[in-house]
């Protein structure tokens, strides 16, 4: 246990140093663009995993919250200017949290795949409405030219903003996960009946985790709106929800930093492989397949492996 905590410390330091130093190494705009996306998707995956990695409840509709965050920020900034950008990111989180209370109320009564499919259905419904409600959302043409907030209006300064917000958000999620509340969540994942016998309310704990998860997913979405200033309804689509599930599992769903690592691998692979070959799907498929077969706890188990090597 002690060792584990020490490992997490090192994780935080490495995480911060790597992403901070990127900003000072005179990177190209493209490197920063990719790093920004890694941070944003990393936060999204970490937030998603607060529910999945502990309780085992698999939401196939988390794109709903990510998209909501992106669209609230994007649409309001488009109408009222970049000054409201940062407040809108947080407002997006709060609105998302409120929506998630309503959805959680309906979905969390369900278990297993039924929960998964109900979350999917809601997200797809919102996706459909976003496409159809052209005059309000811009339909499937999306929203273009979303300005970044003042003070953070260049790609590199905006990166710093993302880094700060993502770092703080992830710290907060970490605190939640390692609190007694997080312990209960993990208990639910192992044996929900035992938690009930201990006199605790499974449903209420899951709902609370779902709401926190939705809040931070929307924060990630809001930040995403500023990276390229271009957002689209496919942020709500099931492929987006699916992407975050794959990232999380690939990285390692039982470890706090697993989802971030998964997001890093996904985004870098997508960038590098697609640039090289038209048959990227085959190449990425083979890489993913090998990872599943050889890294039974996700890519993060590579780190354990290195640690074990050092000890012996």
């Amino acid at each position, binding site marked *: 246990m002690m060792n584990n905590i020490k490992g997490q410390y090192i994780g935080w330091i490495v995480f911060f140093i790597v992403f901070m130093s990127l900003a000072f190494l005179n990177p190209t705009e493209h490197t920063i663009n990719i790093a920004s996306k890694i941070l944003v998707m990393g936060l999204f995956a970490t937030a998603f995993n607060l529910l999945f990695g502990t309780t085992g409840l*698999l939401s196939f509709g988390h794109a709903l919250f990510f998209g909501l965050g992106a669209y609230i920020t994007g649409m309001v900034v488009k109408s009222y200017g970049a000054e409201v950008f940062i407040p809108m990111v947080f407002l997006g989180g709060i609105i998302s949290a409120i929506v998630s209370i309503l959805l959680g109320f*309906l979905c969390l*009564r*369900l*278990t297993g*795949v*039924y929960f998964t*499919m*109900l979350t*999917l*259905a*809601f997200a*797809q*419904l919102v996706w*459909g*409405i976003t496409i*159809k409600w052209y005059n309000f959302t811009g339909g499937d043409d999306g929203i273009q030219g979303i300005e970044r907030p003042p003070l953070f209006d260049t790609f590199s300064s905006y990166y710093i903003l993302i880094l700060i917000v993502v770092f703080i958000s992830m710290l907060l999620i970490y605190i939640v996960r390692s609190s007694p509340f997080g312990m209960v969540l993990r208990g639910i994942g192992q044996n929900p009946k035992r938690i009930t016998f201990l006199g605790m309310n499974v449903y209420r704990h899951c709902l609370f985790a779902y709401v926190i998860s939705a809040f931070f997913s929307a924060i990630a979405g809001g930040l995403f709106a500023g990276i390229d200033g271009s957002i689209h309804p496919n942020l709500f689509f*099931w492929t987006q929800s*699916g992407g975050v*599930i*794959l990232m999380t*599992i*690939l990285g390692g*769903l*039982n470890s706090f930093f697993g989802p971030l690592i998964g997001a890093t691998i996904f985004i870098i692979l997508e960038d590098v492989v697609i640039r090289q070959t038209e*048959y990227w*799907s*085959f190449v*990425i*498929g*083979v890489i*993913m*397949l090998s*990872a*599943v*077969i050889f890294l*039974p*706890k996700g890519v993060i188990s590579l780190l354990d492996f290195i640690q074990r090597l050092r000890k012996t």
Partner: protein
Amino acid sequence: MEIYISQFIGGLSVAMLLFLVASGLSLIFGVANIFNFAHGSFYLLGSYIAYQTISLFPNFWIGLITATIGAGLIGAILEFIFLKRLYGRVNEGPFQILLTYSFILILDDAVKFIWGPEYKTIVKPDILEGSFVIGSIFIPKYNVFIIIVGIAIALLAWYVLNKTKAGMIVRASSLDRTMVGLLGVNVSMVMTAVFGIATALGGLAGAMAAPLRTVTPGAGIEVIIDSLIVVVLGGLGNFWGALLGALIIGEVNAFGILWIPQWASLLSFAIMIIVLIFKPQGLFSKSR
């Protein structure tokens, strides 16, 4: 009145094709409790294998057979080499998602590499060309064929799963593989066989859908969500449930198109929300 009859019959054939495509998933996911995200890719493979066969031997029925066997064999081999390694692992379910998703990526590209990006087509056999006409209602013969095959598969699956020893073993394996193994059954072979049969059903559906749809790379991933809806709506582990799920989706869409055409494309999800809110375990909920 006639319009309702013709919409109803149209909805019926939509439903049967949906059921046919979803039947393999219902078996592997619903009954054997293994998630196969790549079900649509076997559907896609079925279309292409049938196309390839028919362009060599111009006979539709041979195409159906090779598609079924081909997709089933590839499925069984993939299960034997890869999926097998996941059984019993911590987080087995999540890794099934990831592994079968990598199948999608690989198979979709393989199809494009082998057969090119152009759209392919399979022509219906002569015997199934044309329609039965009753008054002003048209019922294409091919749709009748699909309805018959769909019902046959549902009956066969019900019989095998509930009335035979093999079916019992499969159902028992989905609950506790170790236990069934201890009883002296070769669970490993059972799983390979079930996966093979499920993907064979996917291949059959792909070949049968090809004369009505477009055979193109990427068509596989498009059927997976619809199939999932059908399987879950009825309640896992139940072919009759899947059939009912498909019927509801097919018919609600058929009449939705008539009355609220502008919202028709969202109806499937609306149905799923309504059903799951009132029946949290699907329509034929079975305690599992």
